[in-house]
Protein backbone atom coordinates (compact mmCIF):
# COMPACT_ATOMS: atom_id res chain seq x y z
CA UNK A 1 0.00 0.00 0.00
CA UNK A 2 1.17 3.46 -0.79
CA UNK A 3 2.37 5.72 1.99
CA UNK A 4 0.69 8.87 0.73
CA UNK A 5 -2.29 9.03 -1.57
CA UNK A 6 -3.44 12.41 -2.76
CA UNK A 7 -6.54 12.43 -4.92
CA UNK A 8 -8.10 15.27 -6.87
CA UNK A 9 -6.64 17.89 -4.51
CA UNK A 10 -7.61 21.50 -5.19
CA UNK A 11 -7.64 24.88 -3.52
CA UNK A 12 -9.24 28.19 -4.46
CA UNK A 13 -8.04 31.56 -3.16
CA UNK A 14 -10.80 34.05 -3.81
CA UNK A 15 -11.45 33.47 -7.49
CA UNK A 16 -8.07 31.93 -8.21
CA UNK A 17 -7.76 28.17 -8.60
CA UNK A 18 -4.21 27.88 -7.29
CA UNK A 19 -4.02 24.09 -7.51
CA UNK A 20 -6.45 21.87 -9.40
CA UNK A 21 -6.95 18.09 -9.66
CA UNK A 22 -3.64 17.23 -8.08
CA UNK A 23 -3.04 13.48 -7.79
CA UNK A 24 0.01 11.93 -6.25
CA UNK A 25 0.97 8.53 -4.87
CA UNK A 26 4.18 8.12 -2.92
CA UNK A 27 5.46 4.72 -1.80
CA UNK A 28 7.48 4.03 1.30
CA UNK A 29 11.09 5.05 0.89
CA UNK A 30 10.53 6.79 -2.43
CA UNK A 31 12.39 9.91 -3.50
CA UNK A 32 9.89 12.08 -5.31
CA UNK A 33 10.47 15.43 -7.02
CA UNK A 34 7.95 18.22 -7.48
CA UNK A 35 9.02 20.74 -10.10
CA UNK A 36 7.52 23.52 -12.14
CA UNK A 37 8.03 27.16 -13.10
CA UNK A 38 7.70 29.92 -10.51
CA UNK A 39 4.16 30.40 -9.28
CA UNK A 40 3.04 26.97 -10.47
CA UNK A 41 1.65 26.12 -7.01
CA UNK A 42 4.37 23.84 -5.67
CA UNK A 43 4.62 25.41 -2.23
CA UNK A 44 0.81 25.60 -2.10
CA UNK A 45 0.77 21.81 -2.47
CA UNK A 46 3.21 21.55 0.44
CA UNK A 47 1.08 23.89 2.51
CA UNK A 48 -1.98 21.74 1.89
CA UNK A 49 -0.14 18.54 2.72
CA UNK A 50 1.05 20.02 6.03
CA UNK A 51 -2.23 21.66 7.02
CA UNK A 52 -1.18 25.28 6.62
CA UNK A 53 -3.96 25.64 4.03
CA UNK A 54 -7.16 23.63 4.10
CA UNK A 55 -7.81 22.18 0.62
CA UNK A 56 -11.19 23.06 -0.89
CA UNK A 57 -11.42 19.75 -2.77
CA UNK A 58 -9.95 16.26 -2.78
CA UNK A 59 -8.43 14.06 -0.11
CA UNK A 60 -5.04 13.36 1.43
CA UNK A 61 -4.51 9.90 2.88
CA UNK A 62 -1.39 9.13 4.87
CA UNK A 63 -0.85 5.50 5.78
CA UNK A 64 -4.54 4.69 5.50
CA UNK A 65 -6.02 7.66 7.38
CA UNK A 66 -7.22 10.94 5.94
CA UNK A 67 -5.34 14.01 7.17
CA UNK A 68 -7.20 16.49 5.03
CA UNK A 69 -8.07 19.73 6.84
CA UNK A 70 -6.26 18.76 10.05
CA UNK A 71 -4.19 21.27 12.01
CA UNK A 72 -0.44 21.41 11.21
CA UNK A 73 0.48 20.08 14.66
CA UNK A 74 -1.76 17.05 14.18
CA UNK A 75 -0.31 16.36 10.75
CA UNK A 76 3.17 16.52 12.22
CA UNK A 77 2.14 13.91 14.78
CA UNK A 78 0.63 11.82 11.97
CA UNK A 79 4.06 11.69 10.33
CA UNK A 80 4.69 14.47 7.82
CA UNK A 81 7.59 16.85 8.46
CA UNK A 82 8.75 19.72 6.31
CA UNK A 83 11.33 22.42 5.73
CA UNK A 84 10.55 25.88 4.42
CA UNK A 85 11.52 27.76 1.28
CA UNK A 86 12.29 30.88 3.32
CA UNK A 87 14.11 29.28 6.24
CA UNK A 88 12.07 29.29 9.43
CA UNK A 89 14.31 28.46 12.35
CA UNK A 90 13.78 29.40 15.99
CA UNK A 91 16.25 32.24 15.75
CA UNK A 92 16.72 33.02 19.41
CA UNK A 93 17.22 29.40 20.38
CA UNK A 94 20.49 27.50 20.15
CA UNK A 95 21.10 25.02 17.35
CA UNK A 96 20.59 22.05 19.65
CA UNK A 97 17.43 23.55 21.15
CA UNK A 98 15.96 23.85 17.67
CA UNK A 99 16.33 20.11 17.29
CA UNK A 100 15.04 19.52 20.82
CA UNK A 101 11.85 21.39 19.89
CA UNK A 102 11.57 18.99 16.97
CA UNK A 103 11.81 16.10 19.42
CA UNK A 104 8.97 17.59 21.47
CA UNK A 105 6.47 14.84 20.73
CA UNK A 106 9.03 12.03 20.83
CA UNK A 107 10.22 12.53 24.39
CA UNK A 108 7.68 13.75 26.90
CA UNK A 109 7.40 15.01 30.45
CA UNK A 110 4.92 17.40 32.00
CA UNK A 111 5.35 21.10 32.74
CA UNK A 112 5.25 20.37 36.48
CA UNK A 113 8.00 17.76 36.18
CA UNK A 114 10.06 20.39 34.40
CA UNK A 115 9.48 23.12 36.98
CA UNK A 116 10.10 20.93 40.02
CA UNK A 117 13.07 19.16 38.41
CA UNK A 118 11.89 15.65 39.25
CA UNK A 119 14.22 12.74 38.42
CA UNK A 120 12.22 12.13 35.23
CA UNK A 121 13.24 15.61 34.07
CA UNK A 122 16.94 14.77 34.16
CA UNK A 123 16.38 11.39 32.58
CA UNK A 124 14.32 12.77 29.67
CA UNK A 125 16.56 15.79 29.19
CA UNK A 126 19.56 13.54 28.74
CA UNK A 127 17.56 11.62 26.12
CA UNK A 128 16.75 14.95 24.47
CA UNK A 129 20.44 15.84 24.42
CA UNK A 130 21.56 12.46 23.14
CA UNK A 131 19.06 12.23 20.29
CA UNK A 132 19.52 15.86 19.30
CA UNK A 133 23.28 15.43 19.15
CA UNK A 134 22.91 12.30 17.02
CA UNK A 135 20.84 14.25 14.50
CA UNK A 136 23.24 17.17 14.51
CA UNK A 137 26.14 14.81 13.85
CA UNK A 138 24.41 13.44 10.74
CA UNK A 139 24.40 16.96 9.33
CA UNK A 140 27.83 17.87 10.67
CA UNK A 141 26.47 20.50 13.01
CA UNK A 142 27.67 19.03 16.30
CA UNK A 143 30.33 21.70 16.81
CA UNK A 144 27.81 24.50 16.45
CA UNK A 145 25.32 22.92 18.88
CA UNK A 146 25.48 25.74 21.41
CA UNK A 147 25.44 28.61 18.94
CA UNK A 148 22.39 30.70 18.24
CA UNK A 149 20.74 29.24 15.16
CA UNK A 150 20.53 32.69 13.54
CA UNK A 151 24.34 32.88 13.61
CA UNK A 152 24.74 29.84 11.34
CA UNK A 153 25.68 30.38 7.71
CA UNK A 154 22.91 29.90 5.19
CA UNK A 155 23.74 26.37 4.08
CA UNK A 156 23.94 25.13 7.66
CA UNK A 157 20.63 26.76 8.48
CA UNK A 158 19.07 24.63 5.74
CA UNK A 159 20.68 21.55 7.20
CA UNK A 160 19.46 22.45 10.66
CA UNK A 161 15.93 22.74 9.33
CA UNK A 162 16.24 19.22 7.96
CA UNK A 163 17.60 17.95 11.26
CA UNK A 164 14.71 19.56 13.09
CA UNK A 165 12.18 18.07 10.68
CA UNK A 166 13.72 14.60 11.07
CA UNK A 167 13.53 14.94 14.84
CA UNK A 168 9.75 14.64 14.61
CA UNK A 169 10.24 11.04 13.41
CA UNK A 170 8.32 11.47 10.15
CA UNK A 171 7.23 8.90 7.60
CA UNK A 172 7.32 11.49 4.87
CA UNK A 173 9.68 14.44 4.67
CA UNK A 174 8.87 17.45 2.50
CA UNK A 175 11.83 19.58 1.44
CA UNK A 176 11.05 22.98 -0.05
CA UNK A 177 14.00 24.02 -2.24
CA UNK A 178 16.71 22.43 -0.10
CA UNK A 179 19.49 23.37 -2.53
CA UNK A 180 18.51 27.03 -2.95
CA UNK A 181 21.51 29.31 -2.64
CA UNK A 182 24.04 26.49 -2.51
CA UNK A 183 27.12 26.21 -4.71
CA UNK A 184 27.65 23.06 -6.86
CA UNK A 185 29.85 21.40 -4.24
CA UNK A 186 27.31 21.96 -1.52
CA UNK A 187 24.54 20.73 -3.79
CA UNK A 188 26.42 17.52 -4.50
CA UNK A 189 27.01 17.03 -0.80
CA UNK A 190 23.32 17.69 -0.14
CA UNK A 191 22.35 14.97 -2.62
CA UNK A 192 24.42 12.49 -0.64
CA UNK A 193 22.85 13.67 2.60
CA UNK A 194 19.30 13.34 1.27
CA UNK A 195 20.00 9.79 0.05
CA UNK A 196 21.65 8.94 3.34
CA UNK A 197 18.70 10.30 5.30
CA UNK A 198 16.25 8.30 3.21
CA UNK A 199 18.21 5.08 3.75
CA UNK A 200 18.95 5.62 7.42
CA UNK A 201 15.49 6.73 8.53
CA UNK A 202 13.64 4.65 5.93
CA UNK A 203 11.36 7.52 5.01
CA UNK A 204 9.87 8.82 1.79
CA UNK A 205 10.96 12.26 0.64
CA UNK A 206 9.09 14.71 -1.55
CA UNK A 207 11.11 17.70 -2.63
CA UNK A 208 10.64 20.92 -4.53
CA UNK A 209 13.73 22.10 -6.36
CA UNK A 210 14.67 24.33 -9.27
CA UNK A 211 18.12 22.86 -9.73
CA UNK A 212 17.38 20.34 -12.51
CA UNK A 213 20.57 18.32 -12.18
CA UNK A 214 19.80 17.92 -8.50
CA UNK A 215 16.23 16.72 -9.11
CA UNK A 216 17.07 14.53 -12.10
CA UNK A 217 20.05 13.00 -10.34
CA UNK A 218 18.28 12.30 -7.09
CA UNK A 219 14.60 11.61 -7.60
CA UNK A 220 13.10 8.30 -8.70
CA UNK A 221 9.89 9.94 -9.82
CA UNK A 222 9.01 13.47 -10.74
CA UNK A 223 5.74 15.35 -11.03
CA UNK A 224 5.60 18.64 -12.94
CA UNK A 225 3.16 21.41 -12.12
CA UNK A 226 2.26 24.38 -14.29
CA UNK A 227 -0.48 26.88 -13.49
CA UNK A 228 -1.69 24.63 -10.68
CA UNK A 229 -2.17 21.54 -12.87
CA UNK A 230 -0.08 18.43 -13.36
CA UNK A 231 1.41 18.46 -16.85
CA UNK A 232 3.68 15.45 -16.54
CA UNK A 233 4.54 12.63 -14.19
CA UNK A 234 7.06 9.82 -14.41
CA UNK A 235 10.71 8.94 -14.05
CA UNK A 236 13.37 11.57 -14.83
CA UNK A 237 13.89 10.33 -18.41
CA UNK A 238 10.23 10.54 -19.29
CA UNK A 239 9.82 13.96 -17.73
CA UNK A 240 12.93 15.37 -19.38
CA UNK A 241 11.74 14.44 -22.87
CA UNK A 242 8.11 15.41 -22.32
CA UNK A 243 7.25 18.21 -24.80
CA UNK A 244 4.80 19.85 -22.38
CA UNK A 245 7.54 20.17 -19.76
CA UNK A 246 9.97 21.63 -22.24
CA UNK A 247 7.32 24.09 -23.36
CA UNK A 248 6.53 25.11 -19.79
CA UNK A 249 10.17 25.76 -19.02
CA UNK A 250 11.38 27.24 -22.26
CA UNK A 251 8.12 28.77 -23.45
CA UNK A 252 6.26 27.03 -26.25
CA UNK A 253 3.81 27.80 -28.97
Amino acid at each position, binding site marked *: MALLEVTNLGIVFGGLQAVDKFDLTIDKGQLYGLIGPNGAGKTTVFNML*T*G*VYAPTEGDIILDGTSIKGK*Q*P*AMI*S*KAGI*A*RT*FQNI*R*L*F*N*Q*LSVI*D*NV*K*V*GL*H*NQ*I*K*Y*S*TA*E*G*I*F*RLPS*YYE*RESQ*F*RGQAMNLLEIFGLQDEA*KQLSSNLPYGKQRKLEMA*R*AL*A*TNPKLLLLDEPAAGMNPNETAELMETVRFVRDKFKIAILLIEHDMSFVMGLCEKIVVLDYGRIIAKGNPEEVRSNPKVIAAYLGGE
Partner: protein
Amino acid sequence: MKTRQLGKTAKHNLITYAIVVIGFIVVQLLSSAGMISNSLSGQLVPICCYIIMAVSLNLTVGILGELSLGHAGFMSVGAFSSAFFSVCMQETITEPWLRLTLAIIIGAVAAGVAGLLVGIPVLRLQGDYLAIVTLAFGEIIKNVLNSLYIGVDGAGMHFSTKDSLSLNLAQGGRVIINGAQGITGTSKDSTFLMGFILIMITLFVVLNFIKSRSGRAVMSIRDNRIAAESVGINVTKYKLIAFSISAALAGAAGALYAHNYATIVAKKFDYNTSILVLVFVVVGGMGNIRGSIIAAAALTILPEVLRGMNDYRMLIYAIVLIVMMIFNQSPQMVEMRQRFTAKLPWKKAAKADAKGGK
Protein backbone atom coordinates in the same frame (compact mmCIF):
# COMPACT_ATOMS: atom_id res chain seq x y z
CA MET B 1 32.87 20.06 26.62
CA LYS B 2 29.22 19.17 26.99
CA THR B 3 29.08 19.43 30.75
CA ARG B 4 31.12 22.63 30.72
CA GLN B 5 28.73 24.35 28.38
CA LEU B 6 25.73 23.01 30.24
CA GLY B 7 27.08 24.47 33.41
CA LYS B 8 26.92 27.87 31.74
CA THR B 9 23.15 28.23 31.99
CA ALA B 10 23.16 26.80 35.47
CA LYS B 11 25.85 29.31 36.42
CA HIS B 12 23.90 32.15 34.86
CA ASN B 13 20.83 31.20 36.89
CA LEU B 14 22.88 30.75 40.03
CA ILE B 15 24.18 34.31 39.71
CA THR B 16 20.60 35.54 39.40
CA TYR B 17 19.64 33.75 42.61
CA ALA B 18 22.80 35.05 44.26
CA ILE B 19 21.99 38.65 43.34
CA VAL B 20 18.63 38.33 45.09
CA VAL B 21 20.13 36.67 48.16
CA ILE B 22 22.89 39.26 48.42
CA GLY B 23 20.37 42.07 47.95
CA PHE B 24 18.29 40.62 50.75
CA ILE B 25 21.24 40.27 53.13
CA VAL B 26 22.53 43.78 52.38
CA VAL B 27 19.13 45.32 53.03
CA GLN B 28 18.77 43.32 56.25
CA LEU B 29 22.20 44.49 57.44
CA LEU B 30 21.50 48.09 56.50
CA SER B 31 18.16 48.11 58.22
CA SER B 32 19.52 46.54 61.39
CA ALA B 33 22.20 49.24 61.35
CA GLY B 34 19.42 51.80 61.02
CA MET B 35 20.66 53.09 57.70
CA ILE B 36 17.40 52.75 55.80
CA SER B 37 14.97 55.64 55.92
CA ASN B 38 11.40 55.07 57.05
CA SER B 39 9.95 55.84 53.67
CA LEU B 40 12.29 53.36 51.99
CA SER B 41 11.72 50.60 54.51
CA GLY B 42 8.02 51.01 53.83
CA GLN B 43 8.82 50.30 50.18
CA LEU B 44 10.60 47.01 50.78
CA VAL B 45 7.57 44.76 50.37
CA PRO B 46 6.25 46.72 47.35
CA ILE B 47 9.70 46.36 45.76
CA CYS B 48 9.46 42.60 46.20
CA CYS B 49 5.98 42.70 44.64
CA TYR B 50 7.19 44.69 41.67
CA ILE B 51 10.13 42.36 41.14
CA ILE B 52 7.75 39.38 41.06
CA MET B 53 5.42 41.30 38.74
CA ALA B 54 8.28 42.18 36.40
CA VAL B 55 9.61 38.61 36.30
CA SER B 56 6.14 37.19 35.68
CA LEU B 57 5.34 39.75 32.98
CA ASN B 58 8.68 38.95 31.37
CA LEU B 59 7.42 35.40 31.00
CA THR B 60 4.54 36.72 28.87
CA VAL B 61 6.38 39.47 27.02
CA GLY B 62 9.90 38.15 26.71
CA ILE B 63 9.47 34.38 26.63
CA LEU B 64 6.01 33.97 25.10
CA GLY B 65 6.48 37.11 23.02
CA GLU B 66 3.01 38.54 23.50
CA LEU B 67 2.50 42.09 24.71
CA SER B 68 0.18 42.23 27.71
CA LEU B 69 -1.02 45.59 29.04
CA GLY B 70 -3.33 44.20 31.70
CA HIS B 71 -0.93 42.51 34.06
CA ALA B 72 -2.09 44.64 37.01
CA GLY B 73 -5.51 43.05 36.52
CA PHE B 74 -4.13 39.67 37.60
CA MET B 75 -2.35 41.34 40.51
CA SER B 76 -5.71 42.80 41.46
CA VAL B 77 -7.44 39.41 41.30
CA GLY B 78 -4.73 37.96 43.54
CA ALA B 79 -4.89 40.89 45.96
CA PHE B 80 -8.66 40.85 46.40
CA SER B 81 -9.13 37.09 46.59
CA SER B 82 -6.34 36.71 49.11
CA ALA B 83 -7.41 39.71 51.20
CA PHE B 84 -10.97 38.40 51.18
CA PHE B 85 -9.71 35.07 52.45
CA SER B 86 -7.57 36.49 55.20
CA VAL B 87 -10.25 38.90 56.43
CA CYS B 88 -12.68 36.00 56.69
CA MET B 89 -10.10 33.81 58.40
CA GLN B 90 -8.69 36.45 60.73
CA GLU B 91 -10.10 34.73 63.83
CA THR B 92 -9.80 31.15 62.64
CA ILE B 93 -6.13 31.21 61.70
CA THR B 94 -4.13 33.25 64.16
CA GLU B 95 -0.65 32.38 62.92
CA PRO B 96 0.21 35.32 60.61
CA TRP B 97 2.70 33.47 58.40
CA LEU B 98 0.35 30.56 57.88
CA ARG B 99 -2.51 32.91 57.02
CA LEU B 100 -0.32 34.81 54.61
CA THR B 101 1.00 31.64 52.97
CA LEU B 102 -2.51 30.33 52.42
CA ALA B 103 -3.64 33.76 51.22
CA ILE B 104 -0.80 33.87 48.68
CA ILE B 105 -1.66 30.39 47.42
CA ILE B 106 -5.31 31.40 47.07
CA GLY B 107 -4.34 34.63 45.32
CA ALA B 108 -2.08 32.75 42.92
CA VAL B 109 -4.68 30.10 42.12
CA ALA B 110 -7.43 32.69 41.60
CA ALA B 111 -5.25 34.77 39.31
CA GLY B 112 -4.06 31.65 37.50
CA VAL B 113 -7.65 30.63 36.81
CA ALA B 114 -8.42 34.18 35.68
CA GLY B 115 -5.40 33.98 33.38
CA LEU B 116 -6.68 30.74 31.91
CA LEU B 117 -10.19 32.13 31.36
CA VAL B 118 -8.92 35.35 29.83
CA GLY B 119 -6.27 33.51 27.86
CA ILE B 120 -8.64 31.17 26.02
CA PRO B 121 -10.26 33.93 23.94
CA VAL B 122 -7.44 36.49 24.11
CA LEU B 123 -4.53 34.31 22.99
CA ARG B 124 -6.23 33.73 19.66
CA LEU B 125 -5.24 37.29 18.89
CA GLN B 126 -1.76 38.49 18.10
CA GLY B 127 0.34 41.60 18.42
CA ASP B 128 -1.50 44.90 18.84
CA TYR B 129 -4.89 43.26 19.15
CA LEU B 130 -3.77 41.13 22.03
CA ALA B 131 -2.30 44.17 23.76
CA ILE B 132 -5.53 46.13 23.43
CA VAL B 133 -7.71 43.29 24.70
CA THR B 134 -5.48 42.71 27.74
CA LEU B 135 -5.64 46.45 28.39
CA ALA B 136 -9.43 46.24 28.34
CA PHE B 137 -9.33 43.22 30.61
CA GLY B 138 -7.34 45.14 33.22
CA GLU B 139 -9.90 47.94 33.16
CA ILE B 140 -12.82 45.51 33.40
CA ILE B 141 -11.36 43.85 36.49
CA LYS B 142 -10.80 47.24 38.08
CA ASN B 143 -14.34 48.41 37.39
CA VAL B 144 -15.95 45.16 38.48
CA LEU B 145 -14.08 45.24 41.78
CA ASN B 146 -14.93 48.93 42.15
CA SER B 147 -18.61 48.20 42.14
CA LEU B 148 -18.59 44.89 43.96
CA TYR B 149 -20.02 44.60 47.47
CA ILE B 150 -19.71 41.41 49.45
CA GLY B 151 -20.81 40.96 53.06
CA VAL B 152 -20.96 38.05 55.47
CA ASP B 153 -23.47 37.35 58.21
CA GLY B 154 -24.97 34.37 60.00
CA ALA B 155 -26.85 33.32 56.88
CA GLY B 156 -23.75 33.23 54.68
CA MET B 157 -22.44 35.50 51.94
CA HIS B 158 -24.32 38.36 50.32
CA PHE B 159 -23.44 39.93 46.99
CA SER B 160 -24.45 43.23 45.49
CA THR B 161 -23.30 45.54 42.75
CA LYS B 162 -25.23 48.61 44.04
CA ASP B 163 -24.12 49.58 47.51
CA SER B 164 -23.38 48.09 50.89
CA LEU B 165 -26.92 48.72 52.19
CA SER B 166 -28.52 46.54 49.54
CA LEU B 167 -26.57 43.60 50.91
CA ASN B 168 -29.32 43.34 53.59
CA LEU B 169 -26.93 42.05 56.19
CA ALA B 170 -28.40 40.67 59.40
CA GLN B 171 -27.39 41.97 62.81
CA GLY B 172 -23.70 41.39 63.44
CA GLY B 173 -22.89 40.87 59.74
CA ARG B 174 -20.04 42.79 58.22
CA VAL B 175 -19.13 44.14 54.84
CA ILE B 176 -15.89 42.68 53.50
CA ILE B 177 -15.55 44.15 50.02
CA ASN B 178 -17.02 47.63 50.08
CA GLY B 179 -17.05 48.78 46.47
CA ALA B 180 -14.66 51.58 45.65
CA GLN B 181 -13.47 51.62 49.26
CA GLY B 182 -12.16 48.11 48.73
CA ILE B 183 -11.26 45.78 51.56
CA THR B 184 -10.40 47.28 54.91
CA GLY B 185 -9.05 45.56 57.97
CA THR B 186 -6.53 43.27 56.30
CA SER B 187 -3.89 42.40 58.84
CA LYS B 188 -0.49 43.57 57.68
CA ASP B 189 1.11 40.14 57.54
CA SER B 190 3.58 40.74 54.70
CA THR B 191 7.21 40.94 55.68
CA PHE B 192 10.36 41.58 53.72
CA LEU B 193 11.42 38.00 54.44
CA MET B 194 8.19 36.69 52.93
CA GLY B 195 8.76 38.90 49.90
CA PHE B 196 12.26 37.53 49.53
CA ILE B 197 11.02 33.93 49.74
CA LEU B 198 8.35 34.64 47.17
CA ILE B 199 10.89 36.17 44.79
CA MET B 200 13.02 33.04 45.12
CA ILE B 201 10.02 30.82 44.43
CA THR B 202 9.10 32.95 41.42
CA LEU B 203 12.63 32.69 40.07
CA PHE B 204 12.66 28.96 40.67
CA VAL B 205 9.41 28.51 38.75
CA VAL B 206 10.25 30.83 35.86
CA LEU B 207 13.89 29.85 35.33
CA ASN B 208 13.11 26.13 35.54
CA PHE B 209 10.15 26.56 33.23
CA ILE B 210 12.29 28.27 30.59
CA LYS B 211 14.83 25.45 30.67
CA SER B 212 12.34 22.66 30.14
CA ARG B 213 10.45 20.96 27.35
CA SER B 214 7.47 23.29 27.82
CA GLY B 215 9.66 26.38 27.98
CA ARG B 216 11.35 25.47 24.70
CA ALA B 217 7.94 24.94 23.13
CA VAL B 218 6.83 28.40 24.30
CA MET B 219 9.98 30.06 22.96
CA SER B 220 9.66 28.24 19.65
CA ILE B 221 6.16 29.72 19.26
CA ARG B 222 7.62 33.15 19.97
CA ASP B 223 10.38 32.72 17.39
CA ASN B 224 8.30 31.21 14.60
CA ARG B 225 4.73 30.10 15.11
CA ILE B 226 4.39 28.38 11.72
CA ALA B 227 7.57 26.37 12.19
CA ALA B 228 6.53 25.46 15.73
CA GLU B 229 3.22 24.11 14.44
CA SER B 230 5.04 22.22 11.69
CA VAL B 231 7.02 20.23 14.26
CA GLY B 232 3.89 19.37 16.20
CA ILE B 233 3.78 21.99 18.96
CA ASN B 234 0.26 22.61 20.28
CA VAL B 235 0.41 26.39 20.09
CA THR B 236 -2.76 27.18 22.04
CA LYS B 237 -1.85 24.82 24.87
CA TYR B 238 1.62 26.21 25.44
CA LYS B 239 0.52 29.82 25.14
CA LEU B 240 -2.12 29.15 27.79
CA ILE B 241 0.34 27.42 30.09
CA ALA B 242 2.80 30.32 29.94
CA PHE B 243 0.08 32.93 30.28
CA SER B 244 -1.52 31.18 33.29
CA ILE B 245 1.79 30.74 35.09
CA SER B 246 2.51 34.40 34.47
CA ALA B 247 -0.94 35.37 35.81
CA ALA B 248 -0.62 33.11 38.85
CA LEU B 249 2.71 34.69 39.81
CA ALA B 250 1.18 38.14 39.39
CA GLY B 251 -1.63 36.99 41.68
CA ALA B 252 0.92 35.91 44.29
CA ALA B 253 2.55 39.33 44.04
CA GLY B 254 -0.88 40.94 44.47
CA ALA B 255 -1.52 38.87 47.59
CA LEU B 256 1.79 39.95 49.06
CA TYR B 257 1.01 43.55 48.16
CA ALA B 258 -2.48 43.47 49.69
CA HIS B 259 -1.18 42.22 53.01
CA ASN B 260 1.26 45.09 53.28
CA TYR B 261 -1.55 47.61 53.78
CA ALA B 262 -4.61 47.83 56.01
CA THR B 263 -6.76 48.88 53.07
CA ILE B 264 -6.75 47.65 49.51
CA VAL B 265 -8.60 49.37 46.69
CA ALA B 266 -9.05 48.35 43.07
CA LYS B 267 -7.87 51.75 41.85
CA LYS B 268 -4.30 50.86 42.83
CA PHE B 269 -4.12 48.20 40.10
CA ASP B 270 -4.92 50.31 37.09
CA TYR B 271 -3.43 50.91 33.69
CA ASN B 272 -0.53 52.89 35.18
CA THR B 273 0.58 49.93 37.25
CA SER B 274 0.52 47.65 34.21
CA ILE B 275 2.60 50.14 32.25
CA LEU B 276 5.00 50.62 35.14
CA VAL B 277 5.67 46.89 35.26
CA LEU B 278 6.05 46.81 31.48
CA VAL B 279 8.64 49.57 31.78
CA PHE B 280 10.61 47.40 34.22
CA VAL B 281 10.54 44.55 31.72
CA VAL B 282 11.55 46.66 28.74
CA VAL B 283 14.31 48.46 30.61
CA GLY B 284 15.65 45.21 32.04
CA GLY B 285 15.55 43.60 28.61
CA MET B 286 12.85 41.36 27.21
CA GLY B 287 13.48 37.75 28.07
CA ASN B 288 16.17 38.78 30.52
CA ILE B 289 14.95 37.69 33.96
CA ARG B 290 17.90 39.09 35.83
CA GLY B 291 17.43 42.44 34.09
CA SER B 292 13.80 42.55 35.20
CA ILE B 293 14.80 42.08 38.83
CA ILE B 294 17.41 44.80 38.74
CA ALA B 295 15.23 47.23 36.79
CA ALA B 296 12.23 46.71 39.07
CA ALA B 297 14.31 47.22 42.21
CA ALA B 298 16.26 50.19 40.86
CA LEU B 299 13.29 52.00 39.38
CA THR B 300 11.21 51.56 42.56
CA ILE B 301 13.99 52.72 44.85
CA LEU B 302 15.02 55.63 42.64
CA PRO B 303 11.98 57.91 43.22
CA GLU B 304 12.33 57.26 46.97
CA VAL B 305 15.98 58.17 47.01
CA LEU B 306 15.31 61.28 44.96
CA ARG B 307 12.52 62.41 47.25
CA GLY B 308 14.67 65.28 48.51
CA MET B 309 14.96 66.82 45.04
CA ASN B 310 11.22 67.34 44.69
CA ASP B 311 10.91 69.21 41.41
CA TYR B 312 13.63 67.36 39.54
CA ARG B 313 12.58 63.92 40.70
CA MET B 314 10.63 62.85 37.65
CA LEU B 315 13.10 64.55 35.31
CA ILE B 316 15.95 62.47 36.69
CA TYR B 317 13.77 59.36 36.61
CA ALA B 318 13.12 59.93 32.92
CA ILE B 319 16.78 60.55 32.16
CA VAL B 320 17.78 57.38 33.99
CA LEU B 321 15.23 55.46 31.93
CA ILE B 322 16.68 56.77 28.68
CA VAL B 323 20.27 56.14 29.74
CA MET B 324 19.43 52.60 30.83
CA MET B 325 17.73 51.89 27.53
CA ILE B 326 20.74 53.10 25.59
CA PHE B 327 23.11 51.19 27.80
CA ASN B 328 21.13 47.96 27.44
CA GLN B 329 20.04 48.04 23.83
CA SER B 330 22.33 50.22 21.73
CA PRO B 331 24.62 47.99 19.64
CA GLN B 332 27.67 50.15 20.30
CA MET B 333 27.12 50.02 24.04
CA VAL B 334 26.56 46.28 23.97
CA GLU B 335 29.81 45.85 22.07
CA MET B 336 31.66 48.12 24.46
CA ARG B 337 30.32 46.18 27.42
CA GLN B 338 31.43 42.91 25.87
CA ARG B 339 34.90 44.29 25.24
CA PHE B 340 35.04 45.40 28.85
CA THR B 341 33.90 42.10 30.32
CA ALA B 342 36.32 40.17 28.09
CA LYS B 343 39.16 42.07 29.76
CA LEU B 344 38.16 40.96 33.24
CA PRO B 345 40.81 38.59 34.60
CA TRP B 346 38.47 35.64 35.34
CA LYS B 347 36.91 35.84 31.87
CA LYS B 348 40.36 35.79 30.31
CA ALA B 349 41.24 32.67 32.26
CA ALA B 350 38.02 30.96 31.20
CA LYS B 351 38.66 31.79 27.57
CA ALA B 352 42.19 30.41 27.64
CA ASP B 353 40.78 27.35 29.35
CA ALA B 354 38.19 26.84 26.62
CA LYS B 355 40.83 27.19 23.91
CA GLY B 356 43.08 24.70 25.64
CA GLY B 357 40.13 22.31 25.98
CA LYS B 358 39.49 22.29 22.26
